[in-house]
């Protein structure tokens, strides 16, 4: 075990900003991208089932 407590884990030996800044950006994009792909899929499906866009 590397960390004695939560503060130690967050501070990362003084490199907290750099370590968490890296991981946060990775997590952010790995969440945005599947969401964007899912929306694109849903829009394509709607376009097919209701091409005019009028309420059915």
């Amino acid at each position, binding site marked *: 075990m*590397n960390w004695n407590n939560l503060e130690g884990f967050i501070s990362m030996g*003084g490199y907290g900003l*750099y370590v968490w800044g*890296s991981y946060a950006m990775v997590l952010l994009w790995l969440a945005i991208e599947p969401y964007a792909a899912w929306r*694109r899929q849903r829009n394509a499906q709607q376009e*097919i089932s209701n091409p005019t866009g009028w309420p059915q």
Partner: protein
Amino acid sequence: MSTSIKLFTFAAPSTFYKLSGYLIPWLYCLSIAVGLTALYVGFFIAPTDATQGEAYRIIFVHVPAAWMSMVLYLVMAMWAAIGWAFNARLAYMVARAIAPTGAIFTFLALWTGAFWGKPTWGTWWVWDARLTSELILLFLYLGYMALVESIDDVRRSDKAGALLALIGVVNVPIIYFSVRWWSTLHQGATISMTAAPKMASTMLTAMLLMTIAFWAYAFAVVFMRTRAIILEREKNMGWVQFLSQQNKRKKQ
């Protein structure tokens, strides 16, 4: 003859659409499970680095993201070339679907590299060979995406994109060997096929696990985007209409 028919079965967008639909949830599950394991090994088992302290833990996302950025480019160019050579419409669609994922991993490699460079080199960015060629890779991905989206005629945009993707392949070995060819701030290759690993085995384990997680993620999200592109392009085809009717009936 029979084997060639089997091979080309999966080249039909309708077959691919069904198969990838089953695979996507499993790939996401695999990615999350292996990714969490990698984080656990990386943060709780891998020891503190003797020279870099805790800052080195950025390696567990930086190196896998950089690998993905290069491999995805090669895969994208390969599918674009296959599309061009055999006039295979699914191959072109896969190439298009890979580009945004590749661009994101390239950006993440640059971002995590900057966040690693600041505490260890004292600067976010230097114009050295490794960093500059990786930045060019990002521009190649973005250029490819802009090019294929800017031409309305799909067949023409697919071919123009394939040409750009293939020319850009030259950049990938430049990125990979840049640390050997030029003097650079960036450290050498982390892993070599011929030499023993220079890092603790738990560090290596965390990095390889994260690479597997990124691979599973890339497959899942590229499959998702390919399915959306298939629907966009083949919306007037019989099998898509049939699928849409089926879904409507299920909902009722």
